[in-house]
């Protein structure tokens, strides 16, 4: 063990022998520990909510979408669908058309998104549309297309009267109401023929990489289509989540900076208190480089103890709050019943690494000043 490590260890372990230094050192450790704890708990909370949102996206939305490069119609959709099904037998595959129609009930009419899906056997509306039209299961609605047909009475919009079989949860990020129809019915309303605009794919085993895999297969086969994965389909939301994470990390991380400044004062105070010790150490041969290292080790040692204790407490508190569901949420407002916490080991390691780096940076300045002094300076006025 190098002498400076031996000394740093003895200084930290021997703190009880010097009450004043021990007190300020303990305050520095507690400061860093609290900063780490706050950051770990906050990020666990954020990760809890964000992972809930991501899970909702995965549960409810397509994991990849194949769309034409130009225009709105996919060429040979049935052939494309059979190719995809052959390549990815485990994947759920749905042919889609989309458009906007006027949806009316007995009392009101609003424009709404119309989605025709090959897996839809009945008509359903989402909660947003149901609320706007004050309708529910078994009610009748009329879906009126922007397309017209010629009749003896002149051009009339194509319309379908149908009964609502169920009300479903809106897609993540949806703002307007939507109605889900069987594919053929939607094709008749929106296109007048068997047009498919997109093929949605879902792979519950590996949703986040499905887009890249499909893109690779279709590119190899030279199929001229665009494939969007989950990242592309929900880019604004996912970017907002990532940005939120960074901003929270920086904001709460300021606590660590304050703790590091406190540590800097503490190390400078230890250096002042141990002025004679340092001169004696230099006198018996400890080099300026080793003196610098000794104080860096002291700072990092304080940072290590603080960050390990803070991270352990933070992880413990987060897991406890999550498993006991100690912070309940109002039902019907959130998709989860209590505040979720999710501890990501990589995040904890990053927080600890940042705390240690700040501790090292905080002790660097005083260690540099100490190493520059002539050893006799500490002894001169004794």
């Amino acid at each position, binding site marked *: 063990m190098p002498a400076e490590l031996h*000394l740093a260890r003895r200084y930290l372990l021997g703190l009880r*022998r010097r009450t004043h230094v021990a007190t300020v050192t303990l305050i520095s450790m507690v400061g860093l520990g609290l900063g780490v704890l706050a950051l770990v708990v906050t990020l666990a909370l954020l990760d809890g909510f964000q992972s809930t949102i991501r899970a909702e996206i995965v549960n409810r939305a397509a994991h990849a979408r194949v769309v034409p490069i130009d225009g709105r119609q996919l060429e040979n959709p049935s052939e494309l669908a059979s190719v995809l099904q052959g390549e990815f037998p485990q994947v759920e595959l749905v042919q889609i058309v989309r458009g906007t129609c006027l949806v009316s009930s007995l009392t009101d009419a609003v424009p709404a998104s119309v989605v025709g899906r090959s897996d839809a056997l009945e008509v359903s509306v989402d909660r947003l549309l149901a609320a706007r039209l004050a309708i529910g299961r078994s009610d009748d609605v009329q879906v009126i297309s922007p397309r017209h047909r010629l009749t003896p009475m002149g051009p009339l919009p194509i319309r379908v009267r149908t009964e609502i079989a169920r009300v479903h949860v809106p897609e993540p990020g949806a703002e307007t109401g939507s109605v889900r129809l069987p594919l053929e019915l939607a094709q008749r309303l929106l296109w007048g023929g068997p047009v498919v605009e997109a093929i949605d794919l879902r792979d519950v085993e590996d949703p986040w990489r499905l887009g890249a895999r499909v893109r690779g297969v279709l590119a190899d086969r030279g199929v001229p289509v665009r494939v969007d994965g989950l990242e592309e389909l929900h880019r604004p939301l996912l970017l907002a989540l990532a940005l939120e994470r960074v901003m929270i990390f920086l904001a709460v991380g300021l606590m660590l900076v304050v703790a590091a400044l406190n540590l800097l004062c503490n190390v400078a105070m230890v250096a002042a208190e141990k002025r004679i010790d340092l001169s004696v150490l*230099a006198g*018996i041969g*400890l080099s300026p480089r080793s003196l610098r290292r000794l104080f860096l080790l002291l700072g990092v040692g304080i940072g290590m103890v603080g960050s390990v204790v803070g991270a352990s407490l933070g992880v413990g508190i987060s897991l406890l709050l999550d498993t006991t569901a100690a912070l309940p949420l109002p039902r019907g407002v959130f998709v989860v019943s209590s505040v979720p916490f999710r501890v990501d080991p990589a995040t904890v390691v990053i927080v600890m690494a940042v705390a240690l780096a700040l501790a090292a940076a905080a002790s660097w300045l005083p260690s540099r000043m100490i*190493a520059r002094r002539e*050893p*006799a300076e500490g002894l001169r006025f004794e």
Partner: protein
Amino acid sequence: MNDKQTLVELRSVSKGFGDSSTRVEVLRDLDMEVSRGALLAVVGPSGVGKSTLLHLIGLLDRPDEGHIALDGSDVGDLDGETRARLRNRTIGFVFQHHYLLDELDARDNIALPLRIAGEGAVAARARADELLDAVSLDDRAHHFPDQLSGGEQQRVAVARALAMKPRLLLADEPTGNLDRENSEQVFGLVRELHLLAGLTSIIVTHDEELARMCDGTFRLAPAGERFEYV
């Protein structure tokens, strides 16, 4: 700087402190030679620069002017790392107030120069045990400085100074804080180890009686006056 019998040589050394308005010249144009194996006492009134002289010889400080040579080599321009290595391997220090590290017990305090030199813990502690035996403190190995008497602390400090088997021992009023009995005991120990280890020793002291027991006396006078080498 050429006599093979000379271990320490100072030529026209000056040292002062403070800025231009508050400057105090402590040493001016000082010449000094110390032969190998000598036990030299440095005496003089307070503030005359005895400790400063010892710090300069011990490479704890740098002169404003002049040259200092150890074993024939000029050490004035050496960088901090080389000076530290020289202090560790060539020079042993005993300070007035023992200056043991509070966090280390007697054995670890003595072993510290060896640890700094890169010795392993086991070997360093074995050498420390030898020295504890030599200063008759083998039963105090695990006592911390605040659990030792003043005389014992200073004996531990002497043992620490000799841990690396230095060629030059520098002692700054090693008996300054001790009563007569402990003073004579510590000084007797220093002299005994000086002879046993074949050291060259320079001892700063106020005590004329102890100075007379040395091979020679270097009497420092205030700057501007002549110094006397007896």
